């Protein structure tokens, strides 16, 4: 057995997938469209020249925005849709868990559906019989329900049974698409435990997820897709950062689009110019270490004389509010005369726990009427916390000592 490189199990070779979206589907519409010169369909590229190799035992997280092509890639690997060009090869038995209970028939009993679904997933009858009791035990269904038609099941029972069948189909490669997001919390814990069993058994897993936490939790490798292209392939934490950047990019783009309308706020007395993040020496800063002193510089222009206050808000990458500071809080009076101003907010010894922070700045009148707003004006990364997790970080240490009476 050759030792070092683990065997290749999935080989995606320059795969491109074009979708044709039809506008018309009936004969009448199609005939009408023949006479129009343009076809009533448009093509778009869902996957653009994707190549990747996955080796045995890897757990790969496929992440990206909605519409980035991750589910399409999973379907191409699973053979559910054909690639337009390029090829996919794999080794061993592959099971796709794209939807739990896809093969269930409501009129059949749980028992009948187990056999049917198992054979849909490629299990022989002998194999199904061998694992039947395990499936029932894993699903947690009582014996009376096993012989009840599944249409009488609660949705939780349905999903549990479907997942139980799927994980007992014993594939070498498991494709998972968001299905772990179903069921109650206890069931999800069970699912994740089963996924870890698969990992321990050296199986290969390809997982599509929206949840960065889930990817960080189970994956050994991350692939980030953006508009059909692979923009990152590698380490999980770098991948998640890349994903967040990609979210950020689109959010900045959106914010830029809506900025014009946001400028409609107020009557134009004050205009926000921008925000800089600086270190204590006044140099621009992208990466903030724990305990560092930083300066957040808000630049604004007063166009017509008006009393005003300004400030900034920090959000994390999911848009949750982290911190707010303004000139009122500092007791700082701003000159009302027209002109350009920089307002420096010096923050000593910051201890942010969030990795990525986004700054919005704004100006209002002293009684709070908005004058100007600048969303997503700047961003910076804080040093990752190797110990805890949350919005804040601390200097932490731990110790343990026995509190039971010493035994002689």
């Amino acid at each position, binding site marked *: *057995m*050759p030792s070092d490189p683990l*065997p*290749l199990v999935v*080989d995606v070779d320059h795969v491109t997938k074009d*979708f044709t979206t039809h506008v018309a*589907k*009936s*004969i009448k519409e*199609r005939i009408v469209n023949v006479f129009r010169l343009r076809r009533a369909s448009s093509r778009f590229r869902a996957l653009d020249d994707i190549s990747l190799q996955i080796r045995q035992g890897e757990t790969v997280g496929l992440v990206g925005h909605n519409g980035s092509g991750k589910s399409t890639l999973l*379907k*191409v*690997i*699973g*053979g*559910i*849709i*054909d*690639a337009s060009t390029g*090829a*996919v*090869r*794999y*080794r*061993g*038995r*592959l099971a*796709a868990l*794209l*939807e739990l209970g*896809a*093969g269930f*028939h409501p*009129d*059949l009993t749980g028992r*009948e559906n187990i*056999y*049917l679904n198992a*054979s*849909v*997933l490629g299990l*022989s*009858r*002998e194999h199904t019989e061998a694992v039947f009791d395990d499936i029932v035990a894993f699903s947690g269904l009582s014996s009376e329900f096993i012989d009840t*038609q599944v249409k009488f099941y609660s949705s939780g029972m349905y999903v549990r049974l479907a997942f139980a069948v799927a994980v007992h189909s014993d594939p*070498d490669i498991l494709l998972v698409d968001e299905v772990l997001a179903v069921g109650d919390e206890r069931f999800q814990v069970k699912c994740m435990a089963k996924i870890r069993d698969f990992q321990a058994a050296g199986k290969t897993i390809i997982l599509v997820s929206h949840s960065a936490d889930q990817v960080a939790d189970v994956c050994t490798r991350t692939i980030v897709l953006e508009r059909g292209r692979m923009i990152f392939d590698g380490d999980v934490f770098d991948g998640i950062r890349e994903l967040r950047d990609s979210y950020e990019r689109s959010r900045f783009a959106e914010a830029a689009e809506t900025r014009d309308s946001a400028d409609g706020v107020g009557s134009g007395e004050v205009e926000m110019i921008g925000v800089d993040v600086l270190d204590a020496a006044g140099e621009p800063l992208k990466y903030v270490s724990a305990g560092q002193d930083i300066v957040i510089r808000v630049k604004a222009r007063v166009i017509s004389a008006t009393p005003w206050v300004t400030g900034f808000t920090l959000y994390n990458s999911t848009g949750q509010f982290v911190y707010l500071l303004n000139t009122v809080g500092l007791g700082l009076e701003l000159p009302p005369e027209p002109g350009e101003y920089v307002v420096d907010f010096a923050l000593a010894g910051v201890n942010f726990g969030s990795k990525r922070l986004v700054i919005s700045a704004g100006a209002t009148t002293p009684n709070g009427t908005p004058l100007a707003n600048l969303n997503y004006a700047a961003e910076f990364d804080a040093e990752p916390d190797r110990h805890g997790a949350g919005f804040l970080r601390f200097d932490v240490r731990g110790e343990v000592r026995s509190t039971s009476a010493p035994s002689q």
Partner: protein
Amino acid sequence: MTNTSESRDSADGLPPLLSVGRPRGLLTGTRAAAVELYRSRELVRRLIAKEIKSRYKDSYLGVVWSLFRPIIQLAIYYVFIGHFLGAARAIPDFAIFIFAGLTAWTFFNEVVSGGTASIFANAGLVKKIYLPREIFPITSLGAGLFNFAIQFAVLTAATVLFGVFPLHWAIFYVIPAVLILAVYGLALGMLLGAINVYLRDTEHLVEIALMLMFWASPILYSLSFVNGAIGGTVLEPIYLANPVTTAIVSMQKAMWIAGSQDPAQFWPADLDLRLAVTLAVGFVFLWFAQRMFSRLQGNFAQEM
């Protein structure tokens, strides 16, 4: 554990790297599909059972219902068309004659219309799991065969009841009849099922085409009427070229003993040759349909 252990026996003890999707070649593709389908036989068996079970699930009489329909149909044709309309005067043992043709037709009808709808009916599976999708039209064929067996049993019982059990060599004509209907039915079901994914009107079109085909086959009238009306014209060979007609005539030859012994009845010349040619053409057609299906199925999941 036949096929899995086979595929695991590669040189380095690992299963071989296999390509996703099917080879595009005309013969390699067919072979690959045949292998895949053979491996899915267990699933096909279960899907057929599901199809039959779910049809009569929750009804008290269950499968008995599939007996009632043909029996009532038989009674209607026998009483109203046979006696009231007088068709029985020219056709001896009219009930047996009609039922032989109807049994064959119902089978064909079910396979074609079931096959056409089958891909959509299984959209849940097609969109989420990779399977050789030919299994869905094949399942329609299987379910059709099951119902055919029931009807055929009713037909046989009727021949015993009327004292005209077809105890003659010609009874073996049942075999080519069923084969022709199965091959053409499956080929059409596959082809139309695939096209139906792209063009939803197909289902409705098929419904009308089948109705036409029903009347264009010698089911309610005997071939002698056709011979009398268009015999000797160019229309007759066209009428007789219909594979469904050939199969139905073959079925009648086997089961309708009064007709096969009645010199007044018209039987097409060279029935044996016709059957052989029709069947051979049918297999070519089936192969063609499978190739088309294979090409079209790659985009099923995104078209539905």
